[in-house]
């Protein structure tokens, strides 16, 4: 296995560096951080490391998760490992290479404090190469408006889990439109459904975090 492959493997296994104890069988062995440094030392181009090791690794992690072969904590270990590599190559990458493929603003709507689902969506989108601005929980329409003004190209994601807060998605969308803001809006959360999305004129809905990446890519024209 060449170094590129080894790094990718370590991303998949979620092994950050030689100090990391997980996964147990790799404890003590060099991890992503160490190996990326080696690769740089061996003059492998940073962009190649990024695409063929880090992103390629995370893609496999994502599909393992979707296939039920990984838990979220597995995915988080990999994301951490990836990040440790990113920190090394980032300064070396030309700015256009490192540019995110798009921006997503995400928040749980007013009155609603559930955020586990929303956080998973954020994580998945970040893993998929998006920059994600997280407005947190209990987000009033004004905050969505503010963010939409600041990121005019961003997709806006809203989450709601209560039957009594899902109307706040409608209200927030109406508020955006009333302010002349045309950002695409996607919604989710246990209370939402495609039917409800249609009803409140949201531009997209998905049942789970895994599908949200595809959805956002489709909305910005990156996927069919």
């Amino acid at each position, binding site marked *: 296995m060449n170094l590129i492959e080894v790094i990718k493997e370590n991303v998949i296994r979620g092994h950050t560096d030689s100090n990391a*104890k*997980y*996964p*147990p069988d790799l404890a003590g062995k060099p991890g992503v951080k160490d190996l990326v440094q080696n690769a740089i030392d061996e003059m492998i181009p940073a962009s190649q490391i990024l695409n063929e090791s880090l992103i390629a690794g995370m893609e496999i992690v994502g599909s393992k998760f979707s296939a*039920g*072969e*990984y*838990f*979220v*904590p597995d995915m*988080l270990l990999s994301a951490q490992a990836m990040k440790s590599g990113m920190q090394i190559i980032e300064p070396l990458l030309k700015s256009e290479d490192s540019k995110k493929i798009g921006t997503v603003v995400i928040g749980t709507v007013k*009155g609603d*404090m559930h*955020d*586990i689902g929303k*956080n*998973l969506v954020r994580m998945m989108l970040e893993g998929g190469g998006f920059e994600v601005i997280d407005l*947190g*929980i*209990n987000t009033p329409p004004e905050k969505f408006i503010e963010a939409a003004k600041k990121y005019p190209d961003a997709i806006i994601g809203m989450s709601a889990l*209560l*039957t*009594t*807060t*899902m*109307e*706040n998605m409608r*209200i927030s969308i109406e508020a955006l439109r009333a302010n002349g803001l045309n950002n695409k809006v996607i919604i989710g959360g246990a*209370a939402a459904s495609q039917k409800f999305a249609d009803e409140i004129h949201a531009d997209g809905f998905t049942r789970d975090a895994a599908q949200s990446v595809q959805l956002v890519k489709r909305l910005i024209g990156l996927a069919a």
Partner: protein
Amino acid sequence: MISTVEKKLIISNPDELFFGLAPKPVKCQRGFEIGNGVVYPEINFTLPQIIINESTWKEVKSIYTEIIGEVCKRAIELKTPALVVEFELLPPMTMNPEWGAEITKILSENLDVFYKKSGLKSALRVTPVDIRDTNRPPLMRSGELTVNMFRSFELCAQAGADMLSIESTGGKEVHDDALVNADLSGIIFSLGILAVKDMQYLWERVVDISKNHNVIPAGDTGCAFANTAMILADKGMIPKTLAAVIRVATVVRSLQAYLAGAIGPSKDCAYEGPYIKAITGIPISMEGKTSACAHLSYLGNIASAAADLWSNESVQNVKLLSAYAPVVSLEQLIYDCRLMNLALKNGNEFTLKYRNLMVESDAGLDPQAYILKPEIIISLSQKIIQEDSPYKMTLCAVDETLKLLRDASDKKEIKLNEMELRWLDILSMQFDEIPGDEINLIKKMKNGIYADKFLPAEYDI
């Protein structure tokens, strides 16, 4: 005043841990006693899709009025021996305590009418929301939210609640992250220290309020921790073994309510209830297959094995082909209860056999069900109560559950796949590094990755 736990279980024989009978029954105002040989339905309901504000408030009230009327009507038609109704406030109803009290009054008055008119025995459990969790890091002992939460208890008690409960969230601000990272140190810190301290603080006050208004301080639930874990595990997001470990760990924090003076019945969503029943003897509420409307579950039957109240957790007031969903749930609960109550009449031997069906139904299929086997409940509880502090008890709960699950997997009593086994290893490794002493973990956490998530002063640490 928080008392300490006895070193002896109130129920120490697994064959004495079954539905309908609790050593310390709870007497209700409208003519019946919970835990005294009969399982009663506990019906829950919530609003359909609607926003709660001044302009919809009239409609909100009319929805609750309609629900309680329909529910009582059907309860009478089906001749239930008694009915427990839970009203779980929604956040705006706790933030505006008057609103929650108004609905409480509607429900309570209706129950009164049906009691007087038709002899329907009943009790009303009212559960304000732990709104302190609205801001992060949360203020647990100060601020407007805390004030309103306690006022909500007060006003609801005045307005006719018979029992007070809450799904309290102290420590959740750390637990949420620790959970998805499967980080046992964060989980133990959250449950064994933060949650315990908050429970003690909170329940001393709820018990006081209850005494002042002559209502029943009923109990709490590890919902914010263990049910969140359960849902995530059921969706394949975290290991089921982890969810099982967390469930047993919540026993210690939930126990604090009863040490502070709560007398049960525990909250339906507290699947740690059977442990509490074994330790304290109080009656418990449980939810299982008939709460599938609220969440799917791998504990459908085993959940009823020790239940004194049998609940549907929650259902929106939507119309099904037959009737509104709360009426449908109630009917199902009543029929479930009838079977349990007839079994009880058939004597202990048969009751046990019937209880064992419920246990066998699920115990082998999921670690979270496995830890609800009566023998395991008794043996784990026995070990947990030998420890001296809530922190040590929590450590013990985690440690013993990890060992137990490995054992059960080795003995093929449960089937854990490769992913689960891998995480069982990782969790055990993590456990070995957790300080045996509370002070050391607190010190570590004050400076660790969760440092910006919680406010030590709010837990008096």
